[in-house]
């Protein structure tokens, strides 16, 4: 009977190998996925038990963890909750990390990210209790405050970039919220806040600057159309375009009217630069049809349309529909029909004009600091794409300066600084007041800041709104703060 006993022992060996293998799979090879699975409360508790990294602006925390004397051991505290609500996001025990940097850079803040491996090892050897990494952000408090105050109680968003690097200097989305309620250790407070914020029709948890239901850009899109025309080589700033009061659209019996129903110039003609200065719809509608949807889409994608960006938050890609008929091409030429953009994308368009045509990848994390406050990682500015050549960007800059000096954008002027910009008034629903837009950069000859502002439904001015008068002053305030 010895032979079968030996064979049986082989079977037992196989059984044991299988449980060794399955244990190894669960505890080593597959452990990462299991730990990061949704609803893994151990990971949540583990993250809570560990001191989470701080979110810093200029070395000052806007989000920090303070020791608490309950199960969770740490209480997350937001020092200026409303001002930075969409920058920080929240780190709720029940609902997990969400919004802002808390959600997008959770791995770094909680200390699980692989970039922190070395830091963890040295920390273990040195006997430090494990801590998450802290993040120094590019946001500048003064610029953020100026944007916050200027937007006031209106719904909308403001984004300010450094066009030379892509660093985000300010990001405001209204309505905002108080993240402190969402990180309360009192489950009832947390739940109440969560349900209230999620059921609010104004959707305060949505960061309108980079996501949500995307805005139609209206006339600020004319920068893209103008860039496509200049890059095409068939037009220059002095080129004459048709600019009637109403542009006849083929295949339809409706026309494309100008604001105020006036032609853009004598003999129903207008030069490209004056068309930009006065935001002439008919001229740009005609350009849209002349260029065709394909060229406009190509130009837009050079600016970053359609890109999946992480700043580290996910940015919803801006989009232009495919397969356009000529009347739709005319509409797209003036940023109507189904063109959808984020304010960040609009700021990137201005920034590209400011930066000799180069689009820089937008980012918000300046540097990652280890538990001993040494720098683990720094973001290096990175070119995303080349939207146009330097000559085109110079021509566009001059045209956009005209907008602010004697065009639709005069309210956006900053005393003592030459500002370049473009206004927009975007129809988005019948019977609703249009969104007011302004985007631009300053100083025009040596740009340091690019801005995009959108005010929903014309803000306080209601349907009387024109982009210039509602969004212009906000841009002016933000630029002033950035250039100080």
């Amino acid at each position: 009977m010895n032979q079968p006993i030996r064979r049986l022992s082989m079977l037992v060996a196989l059984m044991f190998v299988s449980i060794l293998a399955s244990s190894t799979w669960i505890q080593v090879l597959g452990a990462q996925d299991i730990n990061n699975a949704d609803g893994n409360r151990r990971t949540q508790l583990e993250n809570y038990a560990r001191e989470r990294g701080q979110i810093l602006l200029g070395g000052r925390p806007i989000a920090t963890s303070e020791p608490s004397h309950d199960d969770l051991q740490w209480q997350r505290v937001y020092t200026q909750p409303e001002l930075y609500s969409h920058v920080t996001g929240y780190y709720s025990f029940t609902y997990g990390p969400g919004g802002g940097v808390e959600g997008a850079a959770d791995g770094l803040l909680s200390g699980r990210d692989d970039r922190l491996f070395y830091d963890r090892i040295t920390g273990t050897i040195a006997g430090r209790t494990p801590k998450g990494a802290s993040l120094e952000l590019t946001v500048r408090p003064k610029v953020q405050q100026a944007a916050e105050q200027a937007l006031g109680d209106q719904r909308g968003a403001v984004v300010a970039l450094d066009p030379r690097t892509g660093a985000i200097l300010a990001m405001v989305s209204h309505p905002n919220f108080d993240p402190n309620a969402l990180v309360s250790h009192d489950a009832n407070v947390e739940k109440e806040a969560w349900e209230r914020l999620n059921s609010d029709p104004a959707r305060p948890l949505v960061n309108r600057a980079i996501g949500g239901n995307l805005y139609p850009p209206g006339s600020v899109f004319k920068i893209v159309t103008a860039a496509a025309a200049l890059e095409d080589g068939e037009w220059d700033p002095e080129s004459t375009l048709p600019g009637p009061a109403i542009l006849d659209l083929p295949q339809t019996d409706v026309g494309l009217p100008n604001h105020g129903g006036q032609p853009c110039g004598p003999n129903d003609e207008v030069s490209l630069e004056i068309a930009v200065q006065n935001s002439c719809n008919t001229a740009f509608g005609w350009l849209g049809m002349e260029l065709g949807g394909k060229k406009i889409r190509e130009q837009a994608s050079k600016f970053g349309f359609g890109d999946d960006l992480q700043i580290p938050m996910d940015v919803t890609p801006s989009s232009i529909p495919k397969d356009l008929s000529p009347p739709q091409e005319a509409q797209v030429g003036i940023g109507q029909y189904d063109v959808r953009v984020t304010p960040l994308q609009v700021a990137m368009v201005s920034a590209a004009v400011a930066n000799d045509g180069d689009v820089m990848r937008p980012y918000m994390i300046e540097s990652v600091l280890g538990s001993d406050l040494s720098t683990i990682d720094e973001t290096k500015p990175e070119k995303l794409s080349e939207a146009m050549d330097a000559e085109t960007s110079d021509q566009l800059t001059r045209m956009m300066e005209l907008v602010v000096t004697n065009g639709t954008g005069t309210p956006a002027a900053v005393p003592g600084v030459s500002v370049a910009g473009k206004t927009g008034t975007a129809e988005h629903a019948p019977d609703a007041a249009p969104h007011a837009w302004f985007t631009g950069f300053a100083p025009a000859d040596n740009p340091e800041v690019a801005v995009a502002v959108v005010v929903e439904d014309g803000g306080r001015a209601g349907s009387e709104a024109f982009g210039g008068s509602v969004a212009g002053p906000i841009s002016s305030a933000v630029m002033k703060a950035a250039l100080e």
Partner: protein
Amino acid sequence: MSRAITTITPSRGRNIELLLITLALGVVVIAYANVTVAQDGEIPPDLLGHAGVLGLIALGVHLVLRWRASFADPIILPIVTLLNGIGLVMIHRLDLAAGNDFTSGLASRQVLWTALGVVIALVVLVTLRDHRTLRGLTYTSGLLALVFIALPLTPFGHEVYGARIWIKLGSFTFQPAEVAKILLAIFFAGYLVQTRDMLALAGRKIMGISFPRARDLGPLLIACVAAALVLVLENDFGTTLLVFGLFVAMLYVATERISWIVLGLGFAAIGALIAYQFASHIQTRILCWTDTFSQAGAEQCGQLATGIMGMAAGGVSGTGLGRGRPWMTPLPESDFIFTSLAEELGLIGVFAIIMLYALLIERGLRSAIGLRDGFGKLLATGLTFVLAIQVFVVIGGVTRVIPLTGLTLPFVAYGGSSLLTNWTLIAILLRISDHARRPEPEFDPASMDAPTQVVKTR
């Protein structure tokens, strides 16, 4: 021939055993200190007292072995002591998490059960001077096993978590199926040793596989079908699997015919299909096995997912004793004690524990090979295989190798029934191994069946 050889006393290994027991106790003491230091930051005041109890238990068995079974395998007892100790430490650690101290928690009860189990084991060792006397109890055991298995279906029965596998007398609950494991091993061994030649030789060939005559199989099939039927009625599929696996394995060892394995697997497949069609309980288990982390899986069996998350949280080196969160898994001290240990001791600890079991099983099978009587060989194989199946089904169940069924991890999991039974099983194994390693009174090299033999003997 060579009389000189017999004058040399062969190594009995009792001193090695003592050393290993000391080592095992040392590990348990350190682990126990670890837990309390992690929880309260201080060495427990009653550390030596509690360790002393376990020490006394192990040393008691050790001394009885010196007296009554001096050739018994020296590795078995230290391994069992260590496993039992590790289980105790984990149970105590979970007690602390639940806010109980040693006396009010489950750990003290587990110590009591251990002591009782050891007393029974000692009685077995002292009274059972030769395992072959068990052969006379073949049919008694078979009948008793069936009675025990069927007991929960009587009015004494008691249901927990949908499985009717308990009997309740006053406040005292017991799982009779645990005892049936040993009884069935004795019955199979006794019966097969009588009929093995019939089963192996008589019969007709179908498709190159020879099948035995029905009348030779009768009693076995009756026993098996009855057991399986009852267990299905009790919703205890873990034990069904165990009984069936034991049956097929012992048949194979007795007859040396692969056809048994084929037949057995065929029956198993049919049985499984029928069970899957008719038992919603089984369908749930299969769902949990395949889609543990899905929405449906999470609703039906969050415990499996939680246990696996605990293991993953432990990683390679574990969180450290007293520093994990094993209490987040339901039943962390019984059905899921393996994941609790995995979480706090890590993969390293898991490998150590599985290796301890592997060694234990290796020693059991080695004794079976070393024996010279067929009944003993079969019994040793059967008892050892019972342990192997239990370990595989439990650990395989919680790590998703097979669907989860309710068996207990021998010596480690909390539970009186399984402790008593497994200590008894170990006592019989020790007795058998004493026989296997005892030199023949008249030394005859030809009859020695050394483990490394080249000539095949039957």
